């Protein structure tokens, strides 16, 4: 195999906030009954953390699990570990009705950093990103301008955004546009 390349090869931009392509991340779609012991065990086995409650993301030592829908979780880990993790999860699940599939290459991930991060995101998503309404630990699938996206906060000043790989360029330009200098809203 060759050195794997993400859609935007780690591009970055500095404006109202810093916008950067996070490079390739390990991401595994897990579908199943999220309350089933085997399903929980398969997922937390990868991350060393807990299972997330609805609309949250739970971080562990070696990854995190995001709640996608009542029967879907996104297990995140290092890109290099994703292939093996799919194997261990599949084995752990055995005959439990479920679906484990590597989607690491189907996604792009961005980090939006800076005190204006909430503001930049609020220009693009129909979501209340005000302090108190959206906080680290919460996980939200939504629409970012014209594409589907999932967002969460790593800390008070940092958003992570996931979108499909094919629209990475669009998403990056969108975030850059929203973060263009002079466009501070000063509302949060």
């Amino acid at each position: 195999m060759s050195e794997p390349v993400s859609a935007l090869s780690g591009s970055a931009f500095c404006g109202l906030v810093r916008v950067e392509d996070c490079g390739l991340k390990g991401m595994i779609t897990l579908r199943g009954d999220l309350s089933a012991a085997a399903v929980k065990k398969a997922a937390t086995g990868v991350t060393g953390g807990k299972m997330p409650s609805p609309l949250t993301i739970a971080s562990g030592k070696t990854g995190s699990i995001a709640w996608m829908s009542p029967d879907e979780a996104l297990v995140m880990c290092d890109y290099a570990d994703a292939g093996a993790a799919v194997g261990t999860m599949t084995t752990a699940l055995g005959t439990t009705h479920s679906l484990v599939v590597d989607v690491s290459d189907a996604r792009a991930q961005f980090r939006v950093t800076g005190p204006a991060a909430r503001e930049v995101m609020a220009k693009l998503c129909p979501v209340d990103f005000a302090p108190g309404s959206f906080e680290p630990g919460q996980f939200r699938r939504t629409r970012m301008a014209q594409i589907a996206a999932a967002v969460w906060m790593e800390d008070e000043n940092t958003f992570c955004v996931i979108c499909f790989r094919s629209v990475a360029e669009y998403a990056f330009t969108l975030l850059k546009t929203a973060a263009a200098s002079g466009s501070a809203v000063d509302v949060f």
Partner: protein
Amino acid sequence: MSTRLANQGRLIDRSKPVKFTFNGKSFTGFAGDTLASALLANDQMLVGRSFKYHRPRGIVASGAEEPNALLGLGSGDRFEPNQRATTTELFDGLESASQNHWPSLEYDIGAVNKAFARFLPAGFYYKMFIHPRPFWKHIYEPFIRQSAGLGRAPKDRDADRYEHFYAFTDILVIGGGVAGLLAAKTAAQSGAKVMVLEQTAHWGGRAPVDGGTVNGTAVADYIAILVTELEAMDNVTMRLRCMGAGVYDHGYALGYERVTDHAPSLEGPRHRLWRIRAKQIITATGAIERPLSFAGNDVPGVMLAAAMRDYAVNYGVTPGDKVIVATNNDDAYRTAICLKEMGVDVLRILDARDTGGGELMEQARELGIRIDCGRAIGKVSGGKRVKKVAICAQAGTGAALEEISCDAVAMSGGWSPVVHLWSHCGGKLTWDDSLSQFRPDPNRPPTGADGQGFVVPAGTANGEMHLGEIVSDAVAAGKKATQDAGFKAKRTAAPRGVDTAYAPMEPVWLMPRNAEMELRTKTWLDYQNDVKVSDVQLAAREGYESVEHTKRYTTLGMATDQGKLSNINGLATLANALDAKIPQVGTTTFRPPYTPISMGSIGGEARGEVFQPIRRTPMHDWNEAHGADWEPVGQWRRPYAYVRDGETVHDAVMRETRNVREAVGILDASTLGKIVVKGPDAGRFLDMMYTNMMSNLKPGKCRYGLMCSENGFLIDDGVVARIDDDTWFCHTTTGGAERIHAHMEEWLQTEWWDWKVYVANVTEQFAQIAVVGPKARAVLEKLGGMDVGKDDLPFMEWRDGILGGFDVRIYRISFSGELSYEIAVSASQGQALWNALRSAGDGFGMMPYGTETLHILRAEKGFIMIGDESDGTVIPQDLGLNWAISKKKEDFLGKRAQQRSHMTDPTRWKLVGLETTDGSVLPDGAYAVGEGVNANGQRNMVGRVTSTYYSPNLNKGIAMGLVLNGPDRMGEVLEFPGTDGKIYTATIVDPVFYDKDGEKQNV
């Protein structure tokens, strides 16, 4: 003349002169001026021409309601027409130009329309353009085209940026006047999140100009304190220059923020559209003064009384030296008093009320202003400027009692609350007889998701016209909204507002009351669209009773100001003409936005590079660098062909197509949809999704499948691979991945929710590369690592393995009829594998090929393409695909529909091949004509072309088409009239043109 006074103007900074131009002439104003106040300060009263008669028009208002002073602003890529001078803040270097005249504002040829005014009555367009029919094209349309439109459209691409912002608040207050601010404070004290929008650059609205006290403090100072308090609260957001543009369902509201209009040198977006969700909305949008309807009320120099006061107090500008005031209420006396105190000559106050006004009248009299009660303006004379006023009795027909020379007229016909935002989402109005105005009906508010009212009007917007009531109403509105939003309102006493005592106003819908016809034809209701009292009366005589119909017939209120000044006067005129009461006639519908908002703000960030998402494959950049002529396929961009230097696109397609058949081609097939379907019931589920059987497919094998909707129509096709016992892998068309994934989820979630199946769309996880042609196997063998021979990897099977060091899955499938391998690899390895395949293909004459070659190759083989051969009305049976429809299965989506009589009708058009008799190419979409004509006298149609190409391998035009009884008519020649006037002839043939036995793909 209109001029700047020596030392007035609370909003201007005389130490900061600002230069601007109007129609190329240089003028100077001050920082804080609006363009309107600066033009008036420079004696530029004439600012435009009206729409129909090209009458001279001057500034009439001071705010958003201005109908006349619409100017073109800026130049080049920043030019914008129809900008209101009254809401344009002055900045250094501002360029402005008047509109709707030729050759110049002063001398306008279009003004001859005035002379023909009696030939351009209400409903002129409707009456005129019916007969005679031939006149339309050669006379009417050119005439209308030439005179239509207000301003001219910008030619250049807009140079500015725009953006959206999603905001969520408990309480949204629209309007930052004293009522809005006080309501906001009341709400904010409960701890609720409050957002206040003010459309101008200043807090306080009219109150600082009108005066009065709150709790003993001058109202202007009281407002300053309120603003300071609100700004200090964490739960309050205050936005100036942000208009509440519209109120919509479920607490949705639009705020239109003009971020840098007032200072274009600032970095940043020009406009920001706030997309707000609020639990409760307080509309504190104020009121608009009504003009009086007298002859010549459109002559430049005639102005709303309160506007004249605004110009004097806020900007130190007086629109005239000798002013006459006409009114039916006390408020206009303030204007007379204010002007008089500033040293302007106020010649006369004409009060239409027989008994005149109250305390303000006494104050005016004390200042020495002459007041005539029961008097009216009979007529204002003057062309481009007021010259004199004829005074008459309000009770009469307009016989002049006296004529006075003057250069400005202040008029006030009373006030109309701005109920627009209350009404946008269904709030109803009630008629207030004492103030002659429509005000919000508190019992019929717009209702939200919970069925409860979510808009609360406050202050003058609620029909409260005096400071005392305004203040207490604002506090009450603040409390109501707070409680309705689920918060506990703080118990506070409302402050006490004090204002001069008033005498009641008296409705005056026509001045004088029984004005004769000659006067009524000069009495304007709608300044922008040139609608006069006589037009509305004519409409009533012609039978128009509905206000909505009258509006459209006369164009009253249909201009860019949407009748802010004219609506109430117009419908009162209609009511009088119909001898009906005003509330019975009712209002027209108030629709958002309150004033026009820019297209840029509506689009927001969606322009230029991010106008829409463009989906890119992992090999996109390579494709671009190697001559890709892009074809949009959904949001994807696929190379149509890779064009080399010196080639046309057609040359490239011919070269690529020949090369695949003769040597080997490589195709970026990454866009094909890929969906994993897994679970104990997956086979059963796919048997429902596809027309053919998928449950009996053996692991390791592939099968071509068709998908139909429940209506029976073909919606997608693709190759399905069985991965293991309970896993299938479905390929969809390029445009189909999301649609088909959603289609599967829909049936699983909403119909067969007890079936154990999970699906996942993994389209973008893989780059997919097709290596196609007689030398394809040699290329893969050169790369090495997998056995890809005839027996190791037979046709319609797949294998996982390591090819040239890459983890791949190879599908032995063919959409070209050639030996073909489709290789899937992780997207992050796509470009590397592509490169490796390219290198391996070097000695074999490998070329990349695009979608057009793909199309020609499949058409040569008679393979259908979703979207060409199918169009949402075609069933598989039409396409000769019966072999792919299971007869064994009891059920699948579309099966029942395909049994309907229309679907089994033997006369449905069926797929055939078409070969032109002279080798030319049939026009795409052309229809075949048969015997006879239809009811419209057109030739009967017997078929149509669905795909058509020039085949370089066969050296002739080939096509597919759907033809009546087609398969039974082999060898027959059909006629296809082209849009170029030629008749093309083609022979019906078998749709498989190339390698009929399919030997080449199976080697």
